[in-house]
């Protein structure tokens, strides 16, 4: 018993022989304190376990994904002589420039800095060290600004995934040559680049400005972000007004009878329906029956709205119920009609609660994958959607697609995508808390 001495004195002040001071009573008292401590310890244990697992998740994710936020580039001076590009001297026509041979010129420029690029095999090896997107970026630069023709410019060429992986130290150079994606010859070129300090990995802005790609070095999250934004906007525009209307009717107007009980039970059940079922419904009704486009954020948003509706209805009803009846009576007692009472007094007071519920519902929808798979938002789409009807992916489906790819670069992209998704979820939940704090009113 001495180990509890800090909290329970060995012998309580009232020790004696009375009903509440006898030895038996003191033992009962000690047992009660012990039970308290056990309960507390179990709670602390549960929380530490949860926090520990969360920590492990975050550490693995960040350690696997942080490299995706940096991208390797090779910086070289490129001589954009029209003759070398196979263009007529003096041309400024974008369509003519498009036909220029930028790839060979770019490889020439890199080769000029290295030794040992003396045959076609070496050239091919060097070509595979640059991203397929690099000459296209150079071409687009010149098409946007034809005055560059004839000049020598400094160009940052995107390196291919294998170089990127070596630069980030993710490929073991000691492996046998045919067990790694980069050849001995390419490693020799790479070492020369490092020696001349023309290779570097700055922050990967490209990740936030491009859509999906066949190659990991070019793949970005922007397309999925826009797709998710469109889908969530559609989801919000449909579910928010519908849910508020439904909640107001059920809470303020509906008579209490068997039908409204049935509706209430069904709304609560709807919130627990597996999301893939909503996806099937979207596929069958929106795409098959109404003929809406596949893979479109419009359909994605509609399906997510079905999922979000019950969440918002339940939150809105709780918020309306929490408005004190004295406010309703005050308004009605002044001769305000029912709709004036609701619109002028009850709804504004319930709004913080409704908004909190809405944001939490939308955050759920943002992370929802299954229904989007059913309606084809997991397609390979290399452009950000320009409207709600053009094909798109969403954040969770993009993560799902990348997780399926074998290339090492996509492993990091997958974790990076998850980090972006979690970042948005944290922002949205933070917003919900902020709104609740800001608009909370006393009455």
């Amino acid at each position, binding site marked *: 018993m001495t180990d509890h001495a800090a909290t329970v004195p060995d012998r309580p002040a009232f020790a004696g022989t009375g009903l509440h001071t006898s030895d038996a009573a003191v033992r009962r008292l000690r047992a009660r304190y012990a039970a308290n401590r056990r309960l507390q310890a179990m709670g602390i244990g549960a929380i530490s376990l949860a926090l520990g697992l969360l920590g492990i998740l975050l550490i693995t994710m960040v350690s696997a994904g942080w490299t995706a936020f940096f991208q390797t580039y090779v910086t070289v001076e490129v001589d954009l002589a029209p003759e070398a590009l196979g263009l007529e001297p003096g041309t400024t026509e974008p369509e003519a420039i498009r036909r220029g041979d930028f790839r060979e010129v770019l490889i020439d420029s890199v080769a000029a800095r290295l030794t040992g690029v003396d045959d076609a095999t070496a050239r091919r090896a060097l070509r595979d060290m640059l991203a397929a997107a690099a000459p296209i970026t150079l071409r687009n630069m010149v098409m946007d600004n034809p005055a560059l023709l004839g000049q020598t410019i400094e160009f940052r060429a995107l390196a291919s995934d294998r170089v990127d992986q070596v630069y980030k130290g993710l490929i073991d150079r000691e492996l046998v040559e045919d067990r790694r994606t980069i050849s001995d010859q390419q490693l020799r070129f790479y070492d020369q680049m490092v020696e001349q300090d023309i290779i570097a990995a700055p922050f990967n802005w490209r990740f936030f400005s491009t859509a999906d790609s066949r190659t990991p070095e070019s793949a970005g999250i922007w397309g999925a972000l826009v797709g998710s934004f469109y889908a969530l906007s559609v989801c919000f525009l449909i579910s928010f007004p519908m849910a508020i209307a439904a909640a107001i009717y059920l809470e303020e107007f509906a008579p209490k009878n068997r039908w409204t009980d049935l509706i209430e039970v069904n709304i609560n059940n709807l919130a627990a329906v597996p999301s893939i079922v909503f996806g099937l419904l979207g596929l069958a009704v929106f795409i098959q029956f109404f003929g809406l486009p596949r893979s479109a954020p419009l359909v994605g948003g509609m399906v997510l709205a079905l999922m979000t509706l019950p969440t918002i209805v339940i939150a809105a009803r709780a918020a309306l119920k929490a408005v004190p009846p004295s406010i309703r009576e*005050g308004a009605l007692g002044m001769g305000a009609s029912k709709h004036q009472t609701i619109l002028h007094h009850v709804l504004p007071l319930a709004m913080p609660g409704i908004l909190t519920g809405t944001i939490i519902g939308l955050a759920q929808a943002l992370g929802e994958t299954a229904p989007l798979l059913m309606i084809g938002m997991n397609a390979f789409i290399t452009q950000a959607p320009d409207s709600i009807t053009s094909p798109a992916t969403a954040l969770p489906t993009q993560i799902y697609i990348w997780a399926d790819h074998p290339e090492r670069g996509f492993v990091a992209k997958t974790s990076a995508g998850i980090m972006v998704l979690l970042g948005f979820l944290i922002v949205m939940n933070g917003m919900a808390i902020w709104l609740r704090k800001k608009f909370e009113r006393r009455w």
Partner: protein
Amino acid sequence: MTNVNAAEAQPNVPGSLRYQEASPVAEPGLSVKMTSRGVEVYYGDKRALHGIDCDILTNEVLALIGPSGCGKSTFLRCLNRMNDTIDVCRVTGEITLDGEDIYDRRLDVVQLRARVGMVFQKPNPFPKSIFDNISYGPRIHGLARTKDELHQIVESSLQRAGLWNEVKDRLDDPGTGLSGGQQQRLCIARAIAVSPEVILMDEPCSALDPIATAHVEELIDELRQNYTIVIVTHNMQQAARVSQKTAFFHLGDLVEHGPTEEIFTNPRDERTQGYITGRYG
């Protein structure tokens, strides 16, 4: 017990006239403002009021007293149909305002509540500014055509509620920031702003301290010049101070109804006597 005869309440009854003569304030009009005949209220299957017959005269203060659960608040809420908001509540019988049946289907309940205003037990200002609290009623009823008129209504309502001097410099502050007594006077001003004919008060002072209570009681006495007031109170001294007529409710019956002085000095029914002398309640 519905044996209270309505004639007692009529001004041509001697007792009533005696009271009128004894009253120190200006003689009120003798017309009947509201009448209630055989009013019964059911909450589901439970009968809460057993046929109430009662008259309320213009410009008089009628106090409803009685032990908890006797039906006085229920009766008060019948007078502007606030009971409509309770699903299981059903009202039978006839209540008139200036001779019109207020439970008539053709009557608009919104208009009725504009004519019969209400002040509640717990001060319930809207969580808006003081100005908006007062101007809300005039606005929804379209009583002011211009901003100036609205300002005038707000000022005069606050003045009549005796709150103007305390809040004139902070009309934009939230009404919920005032003290309890000020909040209740704000609620009274809010009710006055709509220019009702009758004001119903449901234990308006039960949440207030003695000083705030005194303020509100003075106010009720002044308001009597322009309005007919029905007040529910648990405090018999308050009933004696502010009212001209008192009605004693017991277990859903209107046991006794008459001039306040008579009820308190010479009650006819022994239940009334028991209550006012504190034997139960």
